């Protein structure tokens, strides 16, 4: 986990926008723009005033260096922050200076020079209630401002902003030597005597470039035109000096040289949208409407590639640094009573699609951190079992005797290739697996068959041990088959096996079918709907260029016209299934599926059956590439229910063994335990699928209730209710006895995760040994 956390130090989330680092005042431009966009001119004015000290002087001195770095410069014209700042001066109704009611500090500061820099320092320090005395050599305030702007502008600004502050101004009082201030009781001095003014040794090399020294217990600081800062920069020097002096008087430390670090911000290219600059109709300044429209053009530059591409950051409205902090807090050892676990559900909701590290300019791997977080939670026994229980049990079923299959090709002992269809393709449609295998066999009769789960559910659950067992299981079967090249149908299996069992030679089914096409005698079933289509590349196939192009070639060979899918061009994204958030955060899974489905009006061609099912569930027309090649042309089929998915896997295994190897297998277990004839209506089956309740589980509950008599009876409705705990879950079924033949009609089923305890112990006596 530490490895992933380390990378976060490179996160650019907090980097300033380009314009702000060019501005001498380095103020919060994004906040300013936001206020201007909303027409909150008073608030925008306050922000600008607080940043500049003297807003009218700053606006007058501004030479708009920001415009040179604004990315909009190449997309319709740089944002005119200068005119926006002027607009906030024009339209703010309340421009009274702020007054701060603070106790006097009891320390005194001399300021040499009443130019913009000296006055800015005086403003800040007097607002902090230092005793401030300004010594000006000439007979007037303003220094070089007299050359740049009308005196009423800067004199008015001095007057207004200093309205609530007390300070002493000594005109015609040049200070020529340090000793002149001796005995006057100053604790610090700011020297802003202007270009060519007295420097008091502060500009010498000995000052270390910082322009500050301590002489006889008094801190001396230099700034403004004296140190070469012109215009607005001189003003900002005065503000910075006030901060440095405040810090010096509190701590005794002199500041280092003022470093204005350049921003490392990187703007996601897709953020740049052409928009013509707003030109003031009067040629000089914005109207209110013009100002708001210009502010609206601003891209509000910040590094937000993750927020654009990662669905989880959008859904949770969280930035990566916060997610990191929450994951760190959540995975810290310790009981939840004594520490917060804010990211528990967030970690479980992630699709683990790895989009973040693809789009992040700093290469931060949030997916890796989340997976490591899940593993940590599992190790600590703090991962709620319910989040992954359904798929773990599904995986165990897939790898069990009723569904798993490992066979060399018919009539042979070993093989050069083995088809690895994964667990979900056959669960969705066993016919596709059988026909795809048939095609492979026609091309290469030395192709065996290995049907198992790749272990992804355990990996996604953070269960490292169980995941390792699943991968070892595949490895053992692969050895048994004579180490064939595995031909995987599922892109997630490809990714998982490539990552965790790199020693297994592996290729994609789609590349193989494309390459072996003629020998496999592919006869496409033909398009099942009106074209054209867009191919939806699953997140797992992101770097599998071979599979991507093979699927397109196969689809076109089947007569489909294809169009690109805009949302997937930069980086393939998840359909919502990955990482299995369906229980932990069904809202999120559905949010992602809906979003992906809406990214094109075209029907999709998928080559991951989980993508196909996720889209069809959201009402999106989507067909699996194997349906185009081997389907019955039936078009968009309803995804199989959870129970059908198990039956299909058993049927697939039995059917293949029978038809290809001549082995007949008895159907595993009676459908109705205890010889009961239990019936379920369509409506109930649909609700059960939604709740991930299997038909076998309903049968098991009814059988238990009938056998033990542990059930309640509703006299009004004539129905029985009872429950049984299966695994971790407790399942309830309401049913009635239908007719004389002993048939039972299940009417309702629901479940809960919490356990009913000690039911069998009643009045201190254990009454029910079977519970």
């Amino acid at each position, binding site marked *: 986990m530490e490895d992933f956390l380390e990378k976060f130090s490179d996160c650019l989330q907090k980097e300033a926008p380009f314009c702000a680092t060019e501005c001498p005042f380095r103020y919060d431009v994004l906040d300013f723009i936001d206020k201007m966009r909303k027409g909150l001119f008073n608030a925008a004015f306050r922000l600008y005033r607080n940043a500049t000290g003297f807003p009218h002087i700053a606006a007058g001195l501004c030479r708009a260096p920001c415009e040179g770095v604004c990315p909009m410069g190449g997309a319709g014209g740089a944002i005119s922050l200068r005119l926006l700042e002027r607009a906030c001066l024009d339209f703010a109704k309340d421009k009274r200076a702020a007054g701060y009611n603070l106790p006097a500090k009891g320390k005194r500061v001399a300021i040499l020079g009443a130019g913009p820099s000296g006055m800015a320092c005086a403003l800040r320090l007097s607002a902090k209630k230092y005793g401030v005395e300004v010594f000006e050599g000439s007979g007037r305030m303003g220094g070089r401002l007299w050359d740049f702007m009308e005196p009423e502008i800067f004199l008015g600004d001095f007057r207004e902003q200093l309205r609530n502050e007390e300070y002493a101004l000594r005109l015609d009082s040049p200070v020529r030597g340090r000793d002149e201030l001796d005995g006057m009781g100053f604790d610090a001095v700011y020297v802003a005597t202007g270009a060519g003014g007295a420097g008091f040794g502060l500009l010498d090399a000995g000052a270390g470039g910082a322009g500050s020294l301590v002489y006889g217990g008094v801190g001396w600081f230099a700034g403004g035109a004296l140190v070469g800062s012109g215009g607005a920069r001189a003003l900002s020097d005065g503000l910075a000096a006030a901060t440095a002096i405040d810090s010096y008087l509190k701590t005794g430390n002199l500041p280092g040289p003022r470093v204005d670090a350049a921003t490392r911000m990187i703007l996601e290219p897709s953020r740049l949208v052409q928009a013509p600059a707003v030109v003031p109709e009067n040629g000089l300044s914005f109207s209110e409407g013009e100002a708001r429209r210009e502010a609206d053009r601003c891209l509000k530059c910040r590094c937000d590639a993750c927020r654009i591409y990662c669905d989880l950051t959008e859904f949770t409205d969280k930035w990566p640094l916060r997610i990191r902090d929450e994951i760190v807090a959540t995975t810290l050892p310790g009981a*939840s009573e004594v520490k917060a*676990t804010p990211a*528990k*559900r967030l970690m479980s909701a992630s699709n683990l699609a790895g989009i973040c590290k693809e789009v992040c300019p700093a290469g931060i791997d949030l997916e890796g951190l989340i997976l490591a977080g899940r593993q940590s939670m599992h190790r600590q026994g703090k991962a*709620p079992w*319910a*989040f992954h229980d359904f798929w773990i049990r599904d995986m165990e079923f897939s790898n069990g005797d009723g569904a798993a299959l490992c066979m060399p090709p018919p009539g042979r002992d070993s093989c050069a290739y083995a088809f690895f269809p994964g667990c979900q393709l056959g669960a969705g449609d066993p016919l596709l697996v059988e026909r795809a295998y048939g095609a492979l066999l026609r091309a290469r009769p030395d192709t065996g068959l290995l049907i198992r789960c790749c272990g992804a559910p355990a990996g996604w659950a953070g269960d490292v041990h169980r995941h390792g067992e699943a991968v070892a299981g595949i490895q053992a079967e692969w050895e048994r088959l004579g180490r064939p090249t595995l031909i995987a149908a599922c892109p997630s299996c490809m990714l998982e096996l490539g990552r965790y069992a790199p020693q297994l030679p592996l290729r994609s089914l789609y590349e193989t079918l494309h390459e072996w096409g003629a020998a496999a005698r592919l006869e496409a079933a033909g398009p099942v709907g009106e074209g054209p289509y867009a191919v939806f590349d699953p997140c797992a196939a992101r770097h599998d260029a071979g599979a991507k192009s093979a699927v397109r070639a196969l689809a076109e060979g089947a007569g489909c016209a294809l169009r690109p899918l805009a949302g997937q061009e930069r980086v393939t994204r998840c359909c919502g299934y990955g990482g299995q958030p369906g229980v*932990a955060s069904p809202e999120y899974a559905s949010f992602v599926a809906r979003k992906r489905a809406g990214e094109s009006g075209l029907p999709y061609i998928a080559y991951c059956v989980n993508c196909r099912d996720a889209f069809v569930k959201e009402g999106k027309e989507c067909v699996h590439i194997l349906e185009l090649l081997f389907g019955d042309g039936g078009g968009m089929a309803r995804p199989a229910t959870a129970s059908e998915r198990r039956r299909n896997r058993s049927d697939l295994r039995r059917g293949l063994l029978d038809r290809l190897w001549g082995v007949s297998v008895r159907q595993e277990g009676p459908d109705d335990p205890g010889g009961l004839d239990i019936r379920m209506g369509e409506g109930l089956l649909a609700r059960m699928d939604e709740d991930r309740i299997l038909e076998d589980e309903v049968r098991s509950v009814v059988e238990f209730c009938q056998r033990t*008599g*542990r*059930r*309640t*009876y*509703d*006299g*009004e409705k004539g129905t*029985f*209710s009872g*429950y049984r705990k299966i695994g971790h879950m407790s399942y*309830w079924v*309401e049913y009635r006895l239908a007719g004389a033949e002993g048939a039972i009609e299940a009417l*309702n089923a*629901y*479940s*809960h*995760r*919490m*356990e*009913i*305890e*000690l*039911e*069998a*112990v*009643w*009045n201190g006596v254990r*009454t*029910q040994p079977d519970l």
Partner: protein
Amino acid sequence: MESGRSRICDRCKVELRLMDAQFSYLKRSFRHKVPRCPECGQVYIPEDLARGRMREVETTLEDK
């Protein structure tokens, strides 16, 4: 919520009454009144309780 008043325990043939039952989830235990058979303790959890309040508590505990 369905009270279970017209509901009887099928074995003891007595009406269920609201009585304390003990539940546990994710290493935490708590008690709640649910319809039970006063004779043998058989519990009945109505659907709206399972999908409503119980789900809420489950979600809260999962986030803890």
